[in-house]
């Protein structure tokens, strides 16, 4: 077994185990911190896929931004709210959670189907790319490619996202503003 394969299984195991722990634990803060482990393991998997830019972006946005924000919201909310949330009755599997379990199971079946039917090793476009030498090696600088594509081929989605983010920013600024005295 090569080192890369070993690393892949190792990181997948960490990602899945920590995700399961984050979903099942009663301690909310711990579940957030374990989620950090999940995200980090995912970043490692991205690196193995030679998507280093995605991996680093994942760490910047999710770990440095979103997780810290979640923790912030968590620490700013009152103790009573948290106590109610932490004392969820019942076990991991219960009748009340049936819809969620059903949904998760269906998604799982779909995913398994995709993996089994797609036959990822023999996809035509993958073969084409290999034949045309249009592949990424570990030494390729992917950011140039990403930047050029964002500014040419994917310019419209890129701009749409920036408008969306601007809207969110304006909305946040409006919500946090003090109301003038009526």
């Amino acid at each position, binding site marked *: 077994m090569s080192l890369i394969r070993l690393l892949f299984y190792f990181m997948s195991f960490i990602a899945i185990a920590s995700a399961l722990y984050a979903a099942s634990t009663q*301690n909310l803060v711990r579940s957030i*911190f374990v989620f950090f482990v999940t995200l980090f393991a995912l970043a490692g998997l991205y690196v193995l896929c030679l998507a280093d*830019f995605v991996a680093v*972006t994942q*760490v910047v946005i999710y*770990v440095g*931004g979103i997780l*810290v924000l979640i*923790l*912030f919201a968590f620490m700013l909310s009152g103790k009573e709210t948290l106590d109610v949330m932490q004392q969820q009755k019942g076990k991991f599997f219960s009748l009340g959670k049936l819809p969620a379990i059903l949904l998760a199971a269906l998604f799982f079946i779909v995913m398994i189907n995709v993996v089994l039917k797609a036959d990822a090793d023999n996809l035509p476009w993958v073969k084409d790319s290999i034949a045309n030498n249009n592949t990424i090696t570990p030494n390729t600088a992917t950011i140039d490619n990403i930047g050029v594509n964002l500014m040419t081929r994917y310019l419209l989605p890129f701009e749409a996202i920036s408008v969306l983010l601007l809207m969110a920013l304006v909305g946040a600024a409006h919500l946090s503003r003090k109301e003038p005295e009526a």
Partner: protein
Amino acid sequence: MNYYITYFIVAIGLFSFSAFFALAGVYAERKISAFIQDRLGPTETGKFGSLQTLADIMKMIQKELIIPAAADKWLFMLAPAIIFIAVYMGFAALPWGPGLIPSKINLGIYYIFAIISIETLGILMAGWGSNNKYSVLGAMRSAAQIISYEIPAGFAIISVVMIAQTLDLQVVSMQQGILAVEKIKFAGFWDVTKIGGLFSWNIFRAPHLIIAFVIYFIASLAESNRAPFDIPEAESELVAGFHTEFTGIRFALVFLAEYSMMFLVSMIGVILFLGAWNTPLPNIGPVHLATWTTNMWWGIFWVAIKTLGLVAIQMWIRWTLPRFRVDQLMNLCWKVLTPLAFLCMLISGVWRLWLM
């Protein structure tokens, strides 16, 4: 297989370097603070008290590790390790000389920026895990401050990256001296590709980067929780902030992380703005000062000297300026530094288009 052994040696070397730097840094900090406040500082242990920090570390290693009864044990124990590892991993992508870099990755600066932000998480972990209101308050302040100051720091870095057109720190370094493969102009008009030295540093290649450098430096003080931005550990209000409950070796790890962070942010500043491992001496006619003083060993020397200079300035600032209040700190960040950093980024774009 030899490959992997080299990796381990490099990792251990970087760790021992940061540990040694923390030892020397604490001693220097004490001596500098003593000089500024007209005291003597440590004098007894060793010549001029030079063994004082070593004695302190010996004491800390022997101390009992106390875990508060109501603390979240796992978070409490892991927090110092995560704080330190986050900073330590940043060292992996810093170039020390021509061809001398622990890990040559083409995302260098972006990677460091990402990995440093994990420190926030460790600090929040320490604060929450201690189950002490001072710790939580300190951790919250620290997180708020680091997240806010990442924005001006990020834009200052982006304005350099726009000039350099790469995220690879080794290439950024290469551009700022006689080893550059492209044409380097001093302030946009004077070709200094063959002259090198001081004139081809980034802050002189595009003078608006001087502003960007000052912004970055201020923000880096905030990111390493140094005075005047040390409200997370404001001892008059919060005892010691997020590390109130830590004892012995865990406390030492938090300190190690702080000093490594100081070195790391200074070194990033040096690499991006102050010519990295390039010599400040230019080639003057037949006197090839720059050519003579550019190689691997000189590289290590220059980068270390410049970085230690910045660290000394950090210490000087710490013992000179009073601490900011929280609202002043946020005002400075959002109303002064962020717009200025935006402006720098804009000028960088224009500069790149018309003057390079």
